[in-house]
């Protein structure tokens, strides 16, 4: 009885339970704040947040901000991925260079790179490019290390076999190294999406004139906690949308893999 009722494979039951959990949380939040048990000044209230969100979209005031943040994130994500892929392949295929650059790359990676934000603001100004640069430094390393590993993990038998079939070094790159690295790249891209958002929002937070991060900063300045929460919700939804897009591409490009879609999407 128990087992059949709470079967994890029963999608309807799972979905209903999830909705129940979400609804319960919202109800609790609303009860606590509306009864004055916790202060809505510090914790906001769900009705206020909803009103803010609807207001943003009805008046259209959110669009320029949302557009800016999304553009920054997507640019950072794309540029970081391409650079990471290129450098990863290049270094993995030239062992000498890999050994030489190893300590520098380790140092750059362990550096708290968000600290570059003020420098980038000086270099690239307060527009989108300082945020893109910050996002790129974050995304690059995630992708880079995965590609590097991916190339190292190419099966020696597949490599030798493809060489025996007459592949030139360019063909090896296209038919063996790239596809083999792609499975690693895709598992890193889920992380990269989240990190790209971190880059643009933190960048906006530290100095900008547009963007959801800027909006949150403004609201915080006037203790408008409802707007802060609404902004965070908005960012979460769009991070999920981008992550789903990556999954769609992954399902298409990784259909040769025996167990597609097993990657866990952990965010930074």
């Amino acid at each position: 009885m128990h087992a059949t009722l709470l079967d994890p494979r029963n999608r309807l039951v799972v979905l209903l339970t999830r909705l129940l959990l979400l609804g319960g949380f919202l109800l609790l939040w609303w009860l606590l704040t509306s009864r004055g048990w916790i202060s809505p000044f510090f914790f906001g209230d769900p009705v206020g947040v909803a009103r803010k969100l609807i207001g943003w979209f009805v008046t259209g005031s959110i669009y320029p901000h949302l557009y800016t943040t999304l553009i920054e994130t997507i640019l950072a994500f794309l540029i970081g991925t391409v650079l990471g892929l290129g450098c990863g392949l290049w270094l993995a295929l030239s062992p000498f260079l890999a050994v030489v650059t190893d300590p520098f790359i380790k140092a750059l990676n362990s550096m708290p790179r968000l600290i570059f934000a003020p420098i980038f603001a000086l270099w690239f100004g307060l527009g989108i490019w300082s945020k893109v640069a910050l996002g790129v430094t974050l995304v690059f390393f995630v992708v880079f290390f995965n590609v590097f590993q991916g190339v190292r993990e190419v099966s020696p038998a597949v490599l030798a076999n493809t060489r025996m079939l007459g592949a030139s070094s360019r063909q090896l790159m296209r038919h063996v190294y790239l596809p083999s690295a792609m499975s690693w790249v895709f598992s890193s891209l889920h992380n990269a999406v989240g990190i790209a958002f971190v880059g643009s929002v933190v960048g906006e937070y530290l100095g900008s004139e547009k963007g959801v991060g800027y909006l949150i900063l403004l609201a915080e300045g006037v203790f408008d906690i409802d707007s802060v929460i609404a902004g965070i919700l908005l960012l979460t939804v769009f991070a999920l949308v981008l992550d789903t897009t990556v999954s769609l591409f992954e399902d298409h490009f990784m259909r040769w893999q025996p167990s597609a879609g097993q990657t866990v999407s952990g965010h930074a």
Partner: protein
Amino acid sequence: MTAALRSVEAERRPQNALEALRFDGVTCAFASNERRGRTYTAVSEVNLSVRDGEFLSVVGPTGCGKSTLLNVAAGLIRPSSGTLSVFGQPLKQGLNKDAAYLFQVDALMPWKTAEDNIAAGLIFHGKSKAEAIATAREWLLRVGLHGHGRKYPHQLSGGMRKRAGLAQALALDPRILLMDEPFSALDIQTRHLMEDELLRLWSTDRKSVVFVTHDLEEAISLSDRVVVMSAGPATKPIAEFDIDLQRPREVAEIRMTQRFLQLHAQIWQVLRREVLKSYARNPA
């Protein structure tokens, strides 16, 4: 009729028959993983020739450097000393372009369908995509994979993957086929099927085959000649036997014949000593 057991060193037959492959004093030493500065000699002073159109099997205890010999033949590794000649030409650098290699483990590109895997080699050789795919489809049919061309390697069974691998190698129409225990991972029925399949494909144009295995029955039932390797390290061929069984053969049936059993007993006598030596050095 008696099987001719000859010492390989004594055998210096006149070079009248065209030789597909010829090992002259081939020695391969590798840097040892365990102790620095030490080297491990896998094969030592190997003299061996493979005639054009001959099906040669190499048997020996496990880990005796049989695969090393194949890798030398493929040009994947260079011998430390000695030379390898391919159809009379010494192989100085690069891969052996006349040879195709069937590996022990699955070596299909997992991100390509069976069809694309077979076509890949042809595309590398400069064929157009359409032409390559058409040839690949023919080969799928020939190895009994009709209707499985659009599947990825993980969707195929072990035997089907071997068939695809065989088609991939043969589609290039190589003059030499190198096979490294290709069927060792298959169950016994599938294995017999694949062996028959291999003989059927081989009999159509008689390529030179070097077939490495540790399974003596497999070696005898497939080959024209069986070479026994000594236990490692510093392996070398120590005996060879002509297999005068009639062709075409049916591997499951030929194993029941009197002549097969005779040959098996003779070769096993030599091989057994090496297997025991090998166990004495590396207890199982």
